[in-house]
């Protein structure tokens, strides 16, 4: 009986394994395969060609990966801080144009990326921000903010300010009341927001290339042409590096979250 009661859960798990872990597994196999002609179920031969090309390519790929990770972490942290503050303003305060700002915060999702990118590019050229790290950082932030604001607004609304007010009347100043009482409650949202902003930045290809003009090399910028290049073994090796490095970062987020609790 117990077994039957849980069958929807088991089914869900199975679907999850098939749809998430299987592609990852195939990615591993592909990146290690020498030749894998259709319609064979297994590769004809294994080879380290993919890995060698990954590590010994035109770029120092590990250095690109680390700098790209660091860059996206900065975007994630900034987007989450701004998202948290914007969410507080939207949820707790009444001000003129509040609806407009709420709507404005999701505009970058509604407007197609190319249109958005072209517009921003023109402005950034005027401001001298194109082809700079700062420009790319800003454009990544613009893309990540709608998500972080939405995530943080939801959890801010759910947590409310009742506990913070309680802390204040107990004699605790506003800032301390926020950091000791509200922040721990917001932690799950902060982790989601960090992860979301990180992956948006880390996987951003088009806007990075457009605004960075090739001088800002992130893993996505280096990787995408190779994936379109048609060599599946090499493409898989890059994709694997991309996926694993993201997973490690998410794992670190989770770990940091648990430590803070």
């Amino acid at each position: 009986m117990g077994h039957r009661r849980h069958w929807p859960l088991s089914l869900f798990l199975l679907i999850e394994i098939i749809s998430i872990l299987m592609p990852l597994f195939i990615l591993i196999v592909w990146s290690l395969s020498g030749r894998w002609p259709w319609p064979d179920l297994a590769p004809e031969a294994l080879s380290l060609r993919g890995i060698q090309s990954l590590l010994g390519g035109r770029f120092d790929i590990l250095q690109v990966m680390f700098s790209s990770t660091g860059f996206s972490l900065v975007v994630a942290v900034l987007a989450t801080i701004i998202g948290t503050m914007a969410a507080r303003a939207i949820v707790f305060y009444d001000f003129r144009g509040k609806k407009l700002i709420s709507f404005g915060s999701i505009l970058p999702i509604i407007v197609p990326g190319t249109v958005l990118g072209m517009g921003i590019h023109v402005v950034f050229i005027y401001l001298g921000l194109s082809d700079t790290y700062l420009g790319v950082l800003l454009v990544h932030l613009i893309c990540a903010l709608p998500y972080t604001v939405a995530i943080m607004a939801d959890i801010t609304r759910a947590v409310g300010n009742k506990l913070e007010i309680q802390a204040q009347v107990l004699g605790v100043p506003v800032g301390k009341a926020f950091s000791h009482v509200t922040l721990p409650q917001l932690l799950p949202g902060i982790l989601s927001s960090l992860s979301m902003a990180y992956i948006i930045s880390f996987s951003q290809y088009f806007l990075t290339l457009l605004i960075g003009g090739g001088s800002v090399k992130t893993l996505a910028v280096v990787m995408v042409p190779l994936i379109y290049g048609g060599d599946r073994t090499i493409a898989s090796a890059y994709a694997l590096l991309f996926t694993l490095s993201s997973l490690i970062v998410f794992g670190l987020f989770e770990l940091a979250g648990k430590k803070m609790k």
Partner: protein
Amino acid sequence: MELALRNISVSLSGKEILKSISFSVGDGDLISLLGASGSGKSTLLKTIAGIIPQTGGTVMIGGAIADALPPHRRGAVIVFQDFRLFPHMTAAENIAFPMKMRGVQKEEYSKTAFALLERVHLAGYGKYKPQEMSGGQIQRVALARALAASPNILLLDEPFSSLDENLRQDMRALVLELQREYRITTILVTHDRQEALSMSDKIAVMMHGEILQYDRPERIFESPNSREVADYFGDAIYVGGIVKSGVFVSDVVRFGADRPDGPYQAMFRPSSVHIGSDGNRAFNIRRTSYQGESYRIALEHESTGIILNAILPSPCLLRADDRVSVSLDTDKVILFRDD
């Protein structure tokens, strides 16, 4: 510390919630804000604590104007109706929190938190999280935490309304005990008239954002200054009549009254209604209802239909439709002009 309110008015989103409220609470006194829900009691507490800014008037704490002080510097601690324990902290950490934030040394705040836990009869519960405690225990932690903040003014927002009756009695006794022990100026918000009458040094009856009367419990109950106040305590019986040349005359009672001539309503409490079996048996018993230690009797005057209520101790031999005589004790009667 003494608290004084001078002409406090509050409007929220264009609606006037509090209208020119003035009263003061003596140092170490406990007063009740009594009124129905929606009368503005909780808003007044929040205004005193500095959470809701007033649109007019002044809050004075300990003789000093507190209007410009933010909530955390007023020393007016609210224990909210929903207690609001911090869910990520244990009971002891909750109590220690205000002291810890004030910069008290760990050893000292741990000791005080432990002592306070004991004081609210929760010794041994220090390591429990709020989710693991019952409503009554949570409330006691909330109370201990409020005391740990060394408040100038303690504001209790309907603190007993979510507890069941037995627990409520215990909590009232505990609150009174602690309030006397720490001599904290306290405002208790309640809609329970028994609670207000039994616990307070003074009662402020609130309705529609105004204080109708502010006085000692006995005075409020026995000499209400308006029908609204009298009605809030329930059980008021009104007999209509006329005062002429210093005498109140009605179909059921007649007594001397030093008032200008005119129509009046005479208010009696059930305790002033005495049932007898001699003389003119002009009343019919409509209903008797058992109240435990007493019976509540509804009487109807046979010719005018005036209804009176009386309380008789149990056991009671009277039944519905019995005819009885009634005398009214006019010592505590109150006359309201009936225009």
